[in-house]
């Protein structure tokens, strides 16, 4: 039962190296590598080797990668041209603003809906009425409402992400076991204490699940909006290359989206892990 023989907790880089070394001893990284390789090989065979229907028009992996790392790209865009980074930057900035707005509005709304039945009675029907409207259906209205390119796109991404966040947060509060409220109640907590010390931390796991979905949804609607009306951004890059038959650039933009999307959702996940040490430690270290 003693904990004294455990050495002190490593910090920062030490911890990272320790974790990495440990991860390399599990099959996970190798299987992931194998999976990606298999996918690339299949992709290559279908599109560049056998060229069977319907893949014969799709630019193959070799073609895309050569273009990607070409200092003098055939179709004008690669890792070495400025517009590639401008497109990434513009999309990321839009996502950041939209995600921040959606979280800032959605989390409090969800918390209050979950906490107060009265507030839920007011707000929930409206939310449920608006939520099923597909984000693409909002596009014309967004263009009518806001001038320019930037605002309508951010608006659409915010909207989609907001609904997911609000709903998940509300479900999170409703999932909190009644016994915590009772315990807090008999320990003499006031209402606002319960809100800050039970409702908020208790809903966090659901909130972060919601945020991970919501950042995906934000990317989805962002790209849709950029494809329809945009001046820059990865969605715009896809649509623009399609219009002028630059299919290689188009696939490059798609894969870039995949990478960037993956990184953003990993960032949300790690923020969640940081805020929920109590779960991390219990799951990660298997208890005391």
């Amino acid at each position: 039962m003693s904990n004294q023989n455990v050495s002190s907790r490593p910090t920062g880089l030490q911890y990272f190296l320790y974790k990495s070394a440990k991860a390399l001893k599990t099959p996970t990284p190798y299987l992931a590598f194998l999976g990606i390789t298999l996918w690339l090989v299949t992709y290559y065979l279908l599109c560049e080797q056998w060229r069977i229907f319907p893949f014969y028009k799709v630019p193959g992996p070799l073609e895309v990668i050569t273009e990607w790392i070409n200092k003098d790209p055939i179709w004008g865009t690669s890792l070495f041209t400025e517009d590639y980074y401008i497109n990434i930057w513009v999309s990321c900035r839009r996502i950041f603003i939209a995600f921040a707005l959606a979280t800032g509005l959605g989390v409090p709304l969800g918390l209050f809906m979950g906490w107060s039945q009265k507030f839920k009675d007011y707000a929930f029907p409206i939310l449920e009425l608006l939520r099923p409207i597909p984000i693409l259906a909002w596009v014309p209205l967004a263009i009518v409402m806001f001038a320019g390119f930037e605002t309508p796109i951010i608006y659409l991404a915010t909207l989609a992400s907001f609904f997911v966040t609000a709903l998940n947060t509300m479900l999170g509060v409703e999932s909190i076991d009644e016994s915590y409220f009772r315990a807090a109640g008999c320990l003499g907590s006031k209402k606002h204490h319960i809100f800050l010390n039970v409702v908020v931390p208790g809903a966090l796991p659901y909130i972060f699940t919601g945020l991970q979905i919501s950042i995906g949804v934000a990317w989805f609607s962002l790209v849709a909006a950029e494809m329809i009306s945009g001046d820059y951004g990865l969605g715009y890059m896809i649509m623009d290359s399609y219009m002028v038959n630059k299919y290689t650039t188009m696939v490059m933009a798609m894969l870039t989206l995949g990478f960037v999307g993956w990184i953003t959702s990993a960032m949300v996940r790690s923020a969640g892990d940081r805020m929920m040490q109590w779960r991390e430690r219990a799951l990660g270290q298997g208890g005391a």
Partner: protein
Amino acid sequence: MNQSDVMILENVSKSFGEDWARESVVENLSLTVKRDQLTAIVGPSGCGKSTIVNLLAGFELPDEGRITLEGKPVSGPSKDSLVVFQETALMPWLTTYQNVVFGPQLRGDMPKNELKSAAESIIDTVGLREFRDKYPLQLSGGMQRRAELARALINQPLVMIMDEPFRGLDAMTRQLMQEFYLRLCEQEARTNVFVTSELEEAIILADSIVVLSNKPASVREMLQIDLPRPRNLDMLNSTEAYEYKRHAMEILHEEAMKSFKGTDTNSDFLEAYSRRA
């Protein structure tokens, strides 16, 4: 009112459900909780024990009758009648220490350094010093129960209400917890209501046992347990303890039979009790 009476229930009744299907759960329940004594409440399963806990703690209010704590009617949950819950209700996002100081910290009724030393000494008492910065999920079942005891004890409640606190622990841990709790109660006397479905647990811990009737719950019999103190679990093998057990089991059996007559849903339970009696 007698000076030694901390909590008094007078003709308390409580029923639930819609008007046309009203089900009476507690009926005409009267009992007294004595100062510095452990009053155990036992009854056949499903007889309304949880409702009684909710009434004592102020989570529910009685339809009829009166519940008073030190002469004042119970009108809602308060730190004076604290519940230690059946399943653990430690906040999983707080460490042991943070859980223990949760109540006093939010109420702000204890100076900071006083609270710190009080919390540390209580954590020592329940033997969790090395686990003060662990989260509940990192603790074993028995440790969680002890942490929860510490969280209640620090508030110095007038009455501690234990709602089947050792349920769900494995047999070994349960015994250890019973011994631990016995010592704790004998070291510093506290007013306790201990609700349980385990007769032996009640006999070894309690000064008096309230045996409940089948639903709707009322007091079927009050038993004074005069086993000498300090006690230990071995005393359960004494003739006296056996006599208490046999007597209480007889009543419980009878009460369980009543629910058997009405429906057949309790037949498993009935069988279990008859085999042990």
